[in-house]
């Protein structure tokens, strides 16, 4: 039984990465109608930026948490301005292909220069060590990841669902012409939203840098699972993706305990089941 508690907690930790990443995807899909396949590559860039900040600039983890999302977010906004914006109104497939291509290019460039084994990034001193919970040894860093990502997820949800700015955003998605008539700069808002989604991915990258190696393919390995999470939660649903992210992390953790061989397929099995029963996802509205 004790082992089970431990697995639940570990699942929650992984779930927080799924939640952060799928949240960014949901924001981008919900507001821009773009299936952002570059998300994994941008997550990886977040980790690399943290590495460079530390090793080239001597800037520590805490500043990286702030700076990496901004730097990668700006990169994202440049992508949106120069490429993605021309796809507005076209079929989803175009956005998917373009962002997938961008992901391959970015990953290829990083792999060319840094190899595939990755680079080390140490856990910040303040978060080293762990505590004994009785049923398991919880590394403090992992606990921090869960709490921090939960806060970020809820803040993002609040921003989009409960504030004036969020209301403009949602309105701009529903009817851009009308919102523009009120004197709001819709294209700029879209760009900023993409930057926000990308920034969330980069933030997840910084959070994961001390746990995993900073590797060019770290995002490619994760992105497919995260897409499954978004599909299960319902494309574009903010709360849906947060809850599904955490829930699937837990389910995956339990699978690793009871039947480890299936741990990287269980998410897709669930996805198929959900699509069969409720094609719009658990919390999705009909299109």
């Amino acid at each position: 039984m004790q082992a089970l508690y431990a697995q639940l907690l570990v699942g929650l930790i992984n779930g927080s990465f799924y939640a952060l990443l799928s949240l960014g995807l949901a924001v981008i899909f919900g507001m821009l109608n773009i299936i952002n396949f570059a998300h994994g590559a941008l997550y990886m860039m977040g980790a690399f930026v943290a590495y460079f900040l530390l090793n080239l600039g001597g800037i520590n983890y805490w500043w990286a948490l702030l700076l990496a999302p901004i730097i990668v977010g700006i990169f994202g906004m440049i992508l949106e301005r120069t490429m993605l914006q021309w796809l507005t109104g076209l079929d989803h497939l175009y956005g998917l292909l373009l962002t997938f291509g961008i992901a391959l290019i970015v990953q290829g460039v990083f792999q060319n220069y840094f190899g595939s084994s990755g680079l080390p990034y140490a856990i910040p001193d303040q978060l080293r060590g762990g505590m004994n919970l009785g049923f398991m040894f919880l590394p403090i860093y992992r606990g921090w990841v869960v709490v921090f990502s939960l806060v970020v997820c809820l803040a993002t949800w609040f921003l989009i669902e409960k504030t004036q700015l969020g209301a403009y955003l949602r309105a701009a998605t529903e009817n851009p012409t009308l919102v523009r008539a009120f004197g709001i700069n819709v294209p700029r808002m879209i760009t900023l939203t993409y930057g926000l989604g990308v920034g969330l991915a980069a933030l997840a990258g910084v959070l994961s840098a001390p746990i995993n190696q900073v590797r060019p393919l770290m995002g490619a390995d994760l992105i497919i699972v995260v897409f499954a999470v978004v599909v299960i939660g319902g494309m574009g649903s903010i709360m849906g993706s947060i809850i599904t992210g955490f829930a699937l992390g837990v389910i995956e953790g339990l699978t690793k305990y009871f039947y480890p061989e299936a741990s990287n397929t269980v998410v897709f099995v669930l996805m198929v089941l959900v699509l069969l029963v409720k094609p719009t996802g658990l919390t999705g509205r009909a299109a």
Partner: protein
Amino acid sequence: MNTRSIASFLLGTALALAATSGAMAQDKTIKIGVLTDNSGLYADLGGPGSTLAAQMAIEDSGLAAKGWKVDLISADHQNKPDIGTAVARQWIDVEKVDVFMDVLNSGVALAVNNVVKEKNAILIDTGAATSDLTNAQCSPNTIHWVYDTYMLANSTGQALVKAGGDTWYFLTADYAFGHALERDTAAVVVKSGGKVVGSVKHPLNTADFSSFLLQAQASKAKIIGMANAGGDTTNTIKQAAEFGIVAGGQKLAGLLLFITDVHALGLKVAQGLNFTETFYWDLNDGTRAFSKRFSERMKNKAMPSMVQAGVYSGLIHYFKALEALGGNPHDGAKVVAKMKEMPTDDPLFGQGSIRADGRKLHPAYLFEVKKPEESKGPWDYYKLIGTTAADQAFRPLSESACPLVKK
């Protein structure tokens, strides 16, 4: 048919035959294919570095000056046996590749091994670990050059049990390589008086090992044997440190680690690990000279892994065999037989030999990773703590299930 036409027919046939056999003896073309993981989790220990090592072997052999024409091609098998076999068939049938180098990933290697045997080409495998390549699956067309699971288990496993690590729990990559490494190590542990208390199989290329590590922690085994490789091993080691596994008194055993993994982890995390390799760049003048030249030509200035060093060493011996034959007969089994006849000698692995079952023999070195303060500079990572002689390091022929071994 009159006598004259019969005579001219015979003469014509004789000339034609002479022409073909002449062409065969004089054929001085070689095509080398480096089949490896160019983009995935094993790309640093093989990948583009293996192709560079092959290129250096070609240059150092001086064959071009002797009138040989050597071509080199490379492909990415993406760690998928089906892609590996498809490339292998195309390379042999269309590209006329003579010899396959590297072929890391045991799953891919076993599949390519069959194609190469069927089509009478050559596989000099320097990357795959499974000892089955020279045991039940051995082939007259295959030489297993650098290391195998039996050797790793024998060297590292025995040393750790002797040092008091008598209960083991395995974290195993769920494919041919992990299974072979766990099987061979478990056998050594039991034979040396230890006990295996459990194991868990994880999918290849896993990012998060915490669930598996918690299970290993709960097993209370003294040694956690990592029967995985590349990125999987580095993630395991890094996360084990986080969960206080080593601090809690359990010891991690890296059954297969490469210098590129140690580099990726950094000495702070990797220090104190014990594992076995058959090549290290800083062993002697020969290895240092080669490695320096190699590193200068690598994009990230990396030192060669034993897999990449094996590509160089294997090709040097292959070239010697072809020169001894006076030309390339394009007959895999024949060339491999010649390679087995000749003793091997190169600056990287020293003197050695190739056994009837295709196993290349050379010493195995037990290393310990240095502490950060012991390291004098980049890539100065290992301390040599033990050497197993070439004839002791690998599976004895008396235990072999290879049909090529006459008993």
